[in-house]
């Protein structure tokens, strides 16, 4: 088998990759924690719509922001 993602030799790059992985995982935990409370507070449908809405807005902000940032 071809090695998948061998350890990076560059410590700075490795650290950046680790931090990105951790940030994604932490976000999952945060969404579950807040989601369970919000869904009981607002009701399942309202919470679902909110999560979807926030996700779409975040996606747009990040996607547009990255484009603007890279000067494209």
């Amino acid at each position, binding site marked *: 088998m*071809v090695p998948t993602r061998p350890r990076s030799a560059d410590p700075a790059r490795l650290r950046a990759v680790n931090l990105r992985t951790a940030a994604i995982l932490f976000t999952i935990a945060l969404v579950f924690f807040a989601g369970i409370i919000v869904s009981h507070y607002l009701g399942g449908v309202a919470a679902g719509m909110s999560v979807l809405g926030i996700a779409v807005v975040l996606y747009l902000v990040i996607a547009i922001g990255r484009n603007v940032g890279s000067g494209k």
Partner: protein
Amino acid sequence: MSSTPHTIAPGEHALDHGYAHHPGGIIRWITTTNHKDIGTMYLWFSFTMFIVGGLMAMTIRAELFKPGLQIVNPEFFNSLTTLHGLIMIFGALMPGAVGFANWMIPMQIGAPDMAFARMNNWSFWLLPPAALLLILSLFVPGGAAAGGWTLYPPLTVQAGMGMDLTIFAIHIMGASSIMGSINIITTILNLRAPGMTLMKMPMLCWAWLITAYLLLAVMPVLAGAVTMLLTDRHFGTSFFNAAGGGDPVLFQHVFWFFGHPEVYIIILPAFGIISEIIPTFSRKPLFGYASMVYALSAIAILSFLVWSHHMFTTGLPTAGILFFMYATMLIAVPTGVKVFNWLATMWKGAISLEAPMLFAIGFLFLFTVGGFTGLVLAIQPIDVQFQDTYYVVAHFHYVMVAGTLFAFFGGIYYWIPKWTGHMYDEKLAKIHFWLSFIFFNITFFPMHFLGLAGMPRRIPDYAQQFADWNMIVSIGAFGFGLSNLVFLYVVVKCIRGGEKAPAKPWEGGSTLEWTLPSPAPYHTFETPPVVQ
């Protein structure tokens, strides 16, 4: 040969045997970021909590030795059953599994340490204060939480200050678990040695990767549930408070969405350990490596779909009952695949019965008994009869104790030569196994009979008809408790000295840790090994 279908090229491992540049004494243990030190601390913490929870169990069994109230009052008895469950699950079993993860994952994937070494230290040091909060809750006005480890409202909404300490302790332990999970997933995904593809990883690493994802998904849910409990208690909300229009059954749904995957969080690392031991002592590669990985994944996914089988008596709609009944039974399929593969690995192997293998075989036999009684409980009409009886207590102790704890004992005997550099006393370890096996069954097998006869759990007194079996159960429990002194003696003796362990004490071992000298140097794999 072991569980991984790979061969190891002799790499140039940067080995640093020196401890001199690290602080000594207590400061070393407080400030350490070394995965081996932290793994050791997790394992000792787990054992300490096991003793504390075990002493609570001994008190419970002393009270139940004969009918009538003799040692503790009923309120304190309820606190004991509650804290016994919480301490054993959050204080003993989960940290024990994390101890194995810390020690073994970096060494098995060829990483120098965990991805976030300082966070690793923090994850551990959150645990002692949390455990202290739990234990101290016994001494506050109103006593400790007494509504069972499941923390069901309305009892937990009405309970005293001890409940607040319990909620706080759960928050802290949850934070520790989430940080640990992030660390483990990041380490496995990003720090594997070149050539170590996911499908070449040892099974312990696979088991922990899946467990860490499970933890990440369900611990925040538990934290959310107890946060809502806290706001119901002190901030005027009514999530679960029926007096304010809340729904106590809602808590059960949220709790068991955490609680059932939690069972797998505890047992999957044990599966990983067993999957390392059996091939080594059968001197054969693990049978069906890929199917073992898929079975682990299937168990993890299905574990999210079965939570309401803990709530069959709460008045679920018929369609819901049928769904959860069949989904629960479905878990037997991937679990059966694993048991079959372990047996197939042993089939025609050159088996030798050292202590780790004895515990692995004990695990196989007793965990299967626990699995079958779980299938019985999955059938709703039967579950309605057995709900909250000693049958349920017998079932989950066969899974948690004979499953996870036996795997931990086996794992410790398997890797302790690598950890300490000494061979353990094989004769005493075998005595420990047989004492554990015999007394475990004397303790927990008769509980099936008591449950079938209708004895409810979590009661300090019982009808005369249950007296004989209860006396036998109590005798078994004291024997099982004392047998752990043998274990402690073997471990301490091994740490203090003994026959020098070679780099590879088990001829069947083929994972990366066996390429290192024994004891494993303080720093390992700073130059990644090459896995072919």
